[in-house]
């Protein structure tokens, strides 16, 4: 090869090199522009993703506040339970086999587990999915011991609400269950997350914002596999952390010992309710509704079957009969009629009315409980003579009766603050006209004895009797005594709240109270047979409220229909009669006669209550309670 030819050869490519260099320049320019774009224009976007990649927010759940009764007995508290979470992405089939083995699952349960893990959608497979809740102690031990071998399986301690009294006072206390998507939407800004639990009834619901506290969180750095990194000191200092604020403790005015007493006294009766209230403060000492449900079951995993069973139970365990439902108060309402008459001076208490055992109005003949003969107001209350009150009702009229009834708190909510309280009902002349086309005087007669369309809740009735007992002060029923911090310090103490003073003369009250004393203590009183000799003196009124004939209901055994057509038995009163401390209302649903069925229960409750208190007082060296109780 000659030098010349070599030169020529090289020259032949000269142009090509320039083109190639140009192409190289072009391609590298594209790469450079792309890198510049990524690292300047798109920087914020990718920096945010990179940060999010390595941060994981671990919630620090707040402990829910404790609920205690007035004596400090714990009603609702928290205990740790252990849930098993599985991260599908991190577990192999052998891992799942191992979990099943460690937890002692039978083949069927194992198949369910395998299916559930397989069913987790792809975008959730890197998440921890709850597979078992509240595992047994031995399962926990097995999983903890061998947990290291199973990186995709986590046992997490979660607090579970525990109700020490089971079904006692269930309606008042309430329960928790998991929030729904609607709940989360309906409470924006309150930090509810899927899986959180929320108060569903009673105090747990109404005082949710106090009891719940505020969850905290910890932001930790994790790698691509979700493993939390060992933090350097510097990282720890930077760590974003908010401590959980524990919920407030709530002390109720309710006395759970008294609740136990009531439950004992109610044995043998399937259905009913009791309210006990302190007449001096309006503090509710007992709200009892039977039948009830177990809060631990309700708060845990309630099966659909169990719920259906409760919903269809003819005794209506899901209903709070002290507040949510209203009833015809029957003869317990007669004292309101009496007071209305006395207050407006339309009827002289010494006026005597002859009771032949029936009352004729128009073509209608209404029957009395018996032929009482000549009765004055006291006698009429003691023996519960309908004829007397009917006669009086014609004089008093519906307007006056309603006005006084409203003054005593009937027909409007008492404001206790839980369980969508019913307002009760005092039917007016207009209401009757609208409803039945025209007003009849017979409606007034029904209203006077707490029948017809007059309805009251047990709490309303108890507050009214408390007002009668304390000389005319109508309190707002109080259920919450105080709110405290977890270290036991009171944050807020609630004072009794007076709703209003009833415009009623003391002599009129005294007259009626004397009649109520007679109901229990006069030999011809309707509750005389129920009184306890040498016990705490009780004053009160029995009632026997007729029940609207129930149509045959689906699921109700026709052989048992007779029971549901029986009257409701009432007793409303207070004790000790001379210096009243508590008012009580007892309703035995379909119990029959008030004197025979409700009064004995009330007597026993009051006897036990004051007896216990006397014992307690004696033990503590004070005898004032005893002295007062024995008067």
């Amino acid at each position, binding site marked *: 090869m000659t030098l010349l030819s070599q030169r020529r050869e090289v020259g032949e490519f000269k142009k090509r090199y320039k083109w190639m260099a140009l192409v190289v320049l072009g391609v590298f320019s594209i790469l450079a522009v792309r890198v510049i774009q990524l*690292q300047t224009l798109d920087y914020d976007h990718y920096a945010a993703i990179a940060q999010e990649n390595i941060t994981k927010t671990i919630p620090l759940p707040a402990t829910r506040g404790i609920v205690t009764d007035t004596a400090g007995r714990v009603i609702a508290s928290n205990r740790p339970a252990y849930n098993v979470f599985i991260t599908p992405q991190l577990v192999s089939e052998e891992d799942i086999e191992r979990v099943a083995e460690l937890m002692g699952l039978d083949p069927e349960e194992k198949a369910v587990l395998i299916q559930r893990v397989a069913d987790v959608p792809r975008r959730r497979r890197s998440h921890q999915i709850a597979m078992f809740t509240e595992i047994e102690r031995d399962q926990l031990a097995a999983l903890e011991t061998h947990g290291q071998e199973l990186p995709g399986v986590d046992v997490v301690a979660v607090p579970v609400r525990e109700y020490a009294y089971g079904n006692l006072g269930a309606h008042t206390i309430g329960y928790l269950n998991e929030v729904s998507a609607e709940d989360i939407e309906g409470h924006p800004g309150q930090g509810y997350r899927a899986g959180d639990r929320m108060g569903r009834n009673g105090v747990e619901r109404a005082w949710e914002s106090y009891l719940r506290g505020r969850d905290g969180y910890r932001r930790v750095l994790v790698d691509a596999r979700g493993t939390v990194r060992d933090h350097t000191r510097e990282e720890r200092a930077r760590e974003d952390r908010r401590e959980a604020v524990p919920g407030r403790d709530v002390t109720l005015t309710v006395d759970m010992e008294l609740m136990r007493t009531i439950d004992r006294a109610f044995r043998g009766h399937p259905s009913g309710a009791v309210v006990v209230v302190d007449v001096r403060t309006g503090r509710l000492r007992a709200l009892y509704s039977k039948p009830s449900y177990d809060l631990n079951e309700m708060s845990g995993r309630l099966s659909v079957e169990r719920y259906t069973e409760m919903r269809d139970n003819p005794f209506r365990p899901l209903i709070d009969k002290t507040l949510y439902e209203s009833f015809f108060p029957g003869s317990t309402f007669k004292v309101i009629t009496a007071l209305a008459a006395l207050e407006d001076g339309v009827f002289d208490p010494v006026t005597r009315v002859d009771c032949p055992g029936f009352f004729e109005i128009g073509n209608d003949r209404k029957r009395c409980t018996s032929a009482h003969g000549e009765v004055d107001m006291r006698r009429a209350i003691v023996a519960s003579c309908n004829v007397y009150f009917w006669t009086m009702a014609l004089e008093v009229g519906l307007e006056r009766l309603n006005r006084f009834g409203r003054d005593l708190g009937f027909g409007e909510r008492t404001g206790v603050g839980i369980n969508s309280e019913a307002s009760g009902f005092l039917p007016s002349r207009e209401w009757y006209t609208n409803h039945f086309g025209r007003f009849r005087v017979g409606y007034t007669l029904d209203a006077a004895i707490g029948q017809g369309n007059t309805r009251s809740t047990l709490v309303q009735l108890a507050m009214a009797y408390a007002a009668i007992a304390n000389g005319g002060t109508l309190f707002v029923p109080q259920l919450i005594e105080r709110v405290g911090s977890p270290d036991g310090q009171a944050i807020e103490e609630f004072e009794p709240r007076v709703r209003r003073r009833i415009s009623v003369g003391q002599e009129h009250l005294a007259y009626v109270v004397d009649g109520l004393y007679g109901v229990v203590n006069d030999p011809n009183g309707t509750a005389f047979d129920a009184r306890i000799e040498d016990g705490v003196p009780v004053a009160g009124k029995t009632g026997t409220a007729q029940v609207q004939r129930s149509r045959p209901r689906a699921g109700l055994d026709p052989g048992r229909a007779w029971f549901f057509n029986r009257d409701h038995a009432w007793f409303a009163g207070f004790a000790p009669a001379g210096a009243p401390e508590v008012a009580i209302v007892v309703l035995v649903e379909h119990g029959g006669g008030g004197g025979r069925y409700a009064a004995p229960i009330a007597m026993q409750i009051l006897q036990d209550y004051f007896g216990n208190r006397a014992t307690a007082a004696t033990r503590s060296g004070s005898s004032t309670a005893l002295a007062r109780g024995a008067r």
Partner: protein
Amino acid sequence: MATLVRGFRDQFDWALFVAVSAIAVIGVVNLYSATSAAGSGLQGLYIQQIYWLTLGAGVAVLVAAIDYRVYERTGWFAYGIGVVLLILVFLLGNTIRGSTRWINIGSFTLQPSELMKIFLIIALAKYLHNDPKTDGRTLKDLVVPGLILVVPMILILLQPDLGTAMICAFIFGTIMMLTKLKLRSLFTLAAAFVLSAPLTWTYLLRDYQRGRLTAFLNPEADLLDTGWHAHQSLVAIGSGGVFGKGYMQGTQNQYRFLPDQFSDFPFSVWSEEQGLLGALLILGLYFFIILWGLKIASQAKDRFGAVVAVGVSALIFWHTIINIGMVCGLLPVVGVTLPLFSYGGSSVLTIMIGVGLLMNVSIRRFSF
């Protein structure tokens, strides 16, 4: 002898040496960070890389020292050795992740397909050197060089190693562009390529490769599976910003969001930790080496030297732009290494031999 040494010193290509050394050193430094993540089990990898670079440097010196006309004479022999090694892969090779690419030599594993790129360049250079045709080449003129390409390429595709086969084809194409092609031949080749694309899709590509392509075309569709690598790489580069997160501070790297950060994604690691300035520095170095390679080619004394220099430049060029294009989300994910920056013995050795060849041609631009 003395004149030879003096001549060598005067003619030594310092620019090439400095640029290549810079990339190699930065590569090792970056590799140290890329493999330092706790629990990755890769901590010792940068030492291995240093061994390979040292060995590669030795081989490069040897390659540069021998007059390249020796390679021209032994071109077919070298090419033959390459093909035999590729056949041996099927007999002795070990399989990793479904591909058979490696032969064990003692405690080393050798990837013959990497070395084949060099043998291919030499063989093509020899063919063109002996066939000094100056008119445009027709399709008929492409039959022999085409065969030179196709024999090893088929063997490589059978492993299968699509990335390397593709690089071989691109090098071939670049070298053919250097000599003249008739416009008609060019169009025919282009048409053939387009027509073969569906066939490639159906028969040549495996499921995971098809997945990578679809993930590239629609990256948001499945971030957790196929699109994951590409996405995390973009996040790494983008979050580096202008100044970077600092050496060893890249969270995408240190927290193991970057897969294969030592082999396929070292540029992402570097860009995350050193930012735009670092990224442009590396781009600049590669750009310089490639242009320098073209300059060497343009000054070569004969056609063999020119073709070898262009071939080596093309080798570095295609590796670089495919790898960086891939980690920047401009190209689908293919396992193509970044020269001297990626971990890998055969890859380092191949590039170093290539650099040795460049140096060889560069030094001898004034001799004979």
